[in-house]
Structures are given as C-alpha cells and as structure tokens.
C-alpha cells in the first residue's frame, strides 16, 4: 500500500505513455519521428528511476533529466505545427509534469544535513515549480494555438523583455523609485507616527483606531481618479494614492502591536517607575515589531498595486501602469506581460528585502527562531 502511495506518479506515467501511443502523432499533420521516440523513452526511463521509496542519487539524476528533456522536445514539436496538438501531446505533457512532481516531492523529502544543501533545496524546489508553470503555459499556448493577442507564450515575453530593457528601466524608475518608494515611506512613517500619537492620548486612540480599522477595510483604490485630479499627472498623485493606501494598515497594525506586550512585562516596567517614553522604547516598540513588519509586508504589495492602477487615470507617457494600458491598446500583449513580469520581480524583491529585515530585527520571535 505505501509502495503504491510513493510510486503513484511513476505508475501513472507508464499508463499515460502507453495510452499516448493510441493517438499518435503528437501534432496532426506532422509525422512521428525519432523525437517522439526519445520523448517516450525518456519518460519511461524517468518512471522506472522513480520506482522506489527512497531515491538514490543516480535515480534522482535520471528523474531530474527525464521530464525536462521530454518537455523540451515536446515544445520543439509544438513549435513546428502550432495549434495542431493531438491528445497524445497532452497526455505526454501531463506525464512529464507528473514526473517533475515526483522529482519535487523526492527533493522535499530530503533532510538536508548541511546549511548549503538546505539552502540549495530551498531555492531549487520553488524554482522547479515556477519553471513548470512557464513550461505548461508555453506548451498550452503553442499546442492549442491560443491567439497571441489573448495570451502570448513566455518565450515571446522573454524576448520582448530582453529587447525593451531601456523602456522597462524608465518605467521602473518612474513607478517604483518615484511613486511607490516615496509613497510607501511617507505612508508607513505617517501611519506609524499617528499610531504613536493615538497611543499617547487615550482619547485619540479610542476615536482613531476604530475609524482606522474601518478605513483600512475600504476600497481606497477608488480614490485614485480623485488623487489624479488633485495632485496632477506626475508621480505625485500616484505617491498620494500609495500614502493613503499604506497609512491605515500601518496605523492599525502598529496600534495592535503597541497593545501586544505582555501584562507582566508592562507591570515590570511599572515597578521600575519607568516613564512613558522609556517603556515605549525599551518594551513596547520592540514587542510591536512583528506587527509593524506585518504592515510593512502588506503595504509592499498594496503600494505597487496602488501606483500601477493610479496610472490608469492619467500619467506622463512613462510608467508601468501607463505601459500596460497603452500596450494592450496597441495589441503588444507581450510587452504587457513583460511589464507584469517586472512588477512581479520588483514586488518579490521588495517583499524579500522586508522579510530579510524582519528576520534580522525580530530574530527573537518564536516564528523566526523556529525556522
């Protein structure tokens, strides 16, 4: 029973490869050749290599090569006759994907002995996942012949990306380094200061926190056109949207964080007859750090979205939001996706930097200590 459980992907691959033989060729109108044979053989080899509860290193190596070789050849086939994929193409694609899954699960089962191996696994496994999303996307778009203007294949996006670096750089400069960063810093810091003020004066706290809680649930993005009206076309209005979007999460989270220190710790400071600012600096702000970082993380994605969407309502002719909306109108869908890739990349880096800072600063928190 457990044997079957561990090997179900491999078994399924064998079944799929066999059944793919029924509906050859891979592309209608394209004769099956040596490449089809290699695909099937490598898949079978991969499946056989995967037939074990614990995978040895050579088996793992075969498993690492097989699905990717097969997928690569499949893509090559699809490229020769776009939109002509037959059932057997899809079946073999599914088989390759199952093998890749098996590879990922055997990699995740490895208990790393050294830090280096652990780090490598931490990077390889999610990368594998990402690579397969792109592979499947490419195969589906090309195999099924989806119109370019609806969804371009990743390869076209990558090509466009490489060819448009100066434009992309200018857009990043406008949207990220002006609107997002400035708005983010302003919004987060004013939100933080407001939380301190609210904490200092009970009356303001009682009034402001419920209102802040309310407002942070509102669809603030709706003010984007109004901000453009008020602050003009350039990045100032985008930064203003970002400020408003990031202000309230920071206010609310910092407020919650300042209430999060233990009663006993607060009593401890009282026994020292510690003053407000001393208690704040030595106890309450450090205790609030996990909450503050939570807001910084939430805000990092909000800021990006806010700035890009605000560019839909008027902008100089540069910027990521501008490019996205303009290039859709020009049917340059590959450029749109290149811009999205940039946004995802920038957003992930932004998030990653904050996450690293969090690890460094809240090193003491159980969630960080635990791994």
């Amino acid at each position, binding site marked *: 029973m457990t044997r079957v459980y561990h090997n179900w992907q491999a078994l399924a691959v064998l079944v799929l490869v066999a059944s793919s033989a029924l509906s050859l060729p891979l592309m209608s109108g394209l004769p099956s050749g040596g490449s089809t044979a290699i695909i099937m053989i490598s898949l079978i080899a991969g499946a056989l290599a995967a037939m074990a509860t614990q995978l040895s290193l050579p088996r793992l190596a075969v498993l690492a090569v097989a699905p990717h070789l097969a997928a690569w050849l499949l893509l090559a086939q699809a490229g020769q006759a776009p939109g002509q994929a037959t059932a057997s193409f899809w079946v073999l694609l599914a088989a390759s994907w199952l093998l890749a899954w098996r590879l990922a699960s055997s990699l995740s089962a490895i208990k790393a002995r050294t830090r280096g191996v652990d780090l490598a696994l931490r990077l390889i496994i999610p990368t594998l996942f990402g690579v397969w999303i792109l592979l499947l996307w490419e195969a589906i778009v090309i195999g099924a012949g989806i119109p370019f203007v609806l969804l371009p294949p990743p390869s076209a996006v990558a090509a466009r990306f490489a060819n448009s670096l100066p434009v992309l750089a200018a857009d990043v400069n406008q949207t990220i380094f002006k609107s997002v960063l400035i708005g983010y810093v302003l919004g987060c810091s004013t939100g933080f200061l407001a939380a301190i003020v609210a904490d200092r004066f009970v009356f303001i706290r009682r009034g402001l926190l419920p209102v802040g809680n309310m407002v942070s649930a509102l669809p603030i993005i709706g003010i984007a056109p109004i901000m453009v009206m008020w602050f003009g076309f350039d990045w100032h209005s985008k930064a203003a949207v970002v400020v408003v979007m990031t202000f309230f999460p920071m206010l609310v989270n910092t407020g919650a964080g300042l209430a999060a220190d233990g009663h006993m710790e607060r009593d401890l400071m009282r*026994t020292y007859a510690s003053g407000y600012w*001393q208690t704040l600096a*030595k106890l309450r702000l450090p205790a609030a750090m996990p909450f503050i970082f939570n807001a910084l993380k939430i805000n990092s994605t909000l800021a990006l979205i806010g700035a890009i969407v605000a560019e839909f309502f008027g902008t100089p002719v540069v910027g990521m939001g501008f490019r996205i909306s303009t290039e859709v109108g020009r049917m340059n869908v590959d450029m749109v996706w290149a811009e999205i890739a940039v946004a995802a990349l920038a957003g992930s880096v932004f998030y990653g930097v904050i996450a690293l800072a969090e690890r460094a600063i809240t090193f003491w928190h159980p969630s960080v200590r635990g791994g």
Partner: protein
Amino acid sequence: MIDQMNALASQIKPATAVSVPVVEAKGLGLTFETNDGPVHALSNVNLTINKGDFVSFIGPSGCGKTTFLRTIADLEQPTAGTLSVNSMTPRQAREARAYGYVFQAAALLPWRTIERNVALPLEVMGFSRTDVAERIHRTLELVNLTGFEKKYPWQLSGGMQQRASIARALAFDADLLLMDEPFGALDEIVRDHLNSQLLELWARTSKTICFVTHSIPEAVYLSTKIVVMSPRPGRVTDVIESTLPKERPLDIRETPEFLAIAARVRDGLRAGHSYED
C-alpha cells in the same frame, strides 16, 4: 561560589533587627469587579512586615497571595483599608524605586541578551555605564550565570531564566524584595541551592523579603515569619513567627523544631483548603 559568599557574609555584619515597619496593612481589602460579579481577592488583611523580615506567603491557589504582593507594588489599588510601604503610599514607594519584584514567570524580554535584561532596570533608573557593567557582573555571578551574559533568554533552560529574572531584581539593590513563587519552575536540588543562596544574601544585606511559595518546607526553611492565607475571600488565617535560628544549614529541615512548624503550617493550610481548586 558558596565559599566566596560565606567569606563575604562574615565580613559584613548583619543589621540588627530593629522593628522598623516596612509594610503595614490595616483592614486591607481588594475586590475585583468582573462581569460575573465581584471577586473578593483580599479582605480585611492586617499585617506588619518589619525591616529585615523574611516573610513567606503560603495558601491554596487563588487565595490572594499574588494580589497582596501586587498591591504592595502599586500594581493593584486596594478598595478598602490602608497600606503603607516605607511609611509612604505604595505609589510614592514605587516612584522612589523602593522594591524589586520577581514575577512568577521569568518575564525576560526576548530581544535582549541576559546581560541586557539585567541592565534594563539600571538603564531606566539612569545608572552610570561603568556602574551598570559592574552590577551586571556582580548579580549574574551571584545567581551563577557567569558565562551566559550574551545568550538570549530562549537559549536558556527554564531554571536559568528564572535565575536571570532574580538577578534583574537584585541588580539595583532595592531594600524590599517581592518574590512571587520565584522557584516554582525549578527542581528540588536547584531549589535547595538557590534557597540557601537567597538566605545568604538576605543575611548579608538585611533586605526585607516577601516571598510567595507553594512549598511548606521552603516556607519554613526560609522565613522569619510565615503568613498562611485562605481563599474566598482571601484573608490571613495564621501568622507564624519562626523560632529557627538565623543560621540555617540545609539539614535543619530534619530537626523536630522544623517539622513542628511545618506541621502547623500544613494544618493551617488544610483548614483553609477546598478540594475543588
């Protein structure tokens, strides 16, 4: 280390006990208002603690031991009677930094190393840099934590954390020590060890110590005065003045005198006890 402390203790003469009241409670009462109705945590407590006393509080769970200590520390406000600390209100005493408090849990700040934790009250109270360093060194040595200065609390065992929190309360040399079950998390041997160290310290510095415990032998071993409390409402049912000498080796615990006091405490305890808790 014990040797070293003995040496110290013989150099410094223990202060002779003149009856200066440090804590005076008269008709003290404290009622918590909860949504289930009022909880009478303390009721008509009359108690005088003199300078140099070592007072243990013992009683079943929920009888108000912690509440009484917290009231002394100005962490709770009495709802009846009067309470003075060093002839001041508890609030003035707190603001004069009259006492050190050891909580039941260690309550160390996880983002500070052990030495920074001990430094915390010193920073707040504005001690000089060199003084701080010297005091950290001295108190950590006292609780046997030398070598662990740079560790974070979670890197220490529960017992070591507890000792660090005691060091923190000792660091600024308050004359009154309030200790709420400080040795609850420790095993018998470590407890014995810390008990004797605490006695040494007390004998040497003539501090006044209020000490909450669940252990009868511990109470008897340590105290000059044992306060037995009983719950609902929390009140003092017995105050036992210890007849044991100030010098107490560990094996004093097998003497008939010791056992007699222990038996009296046990009876007092049992009387006030309800098995439901």
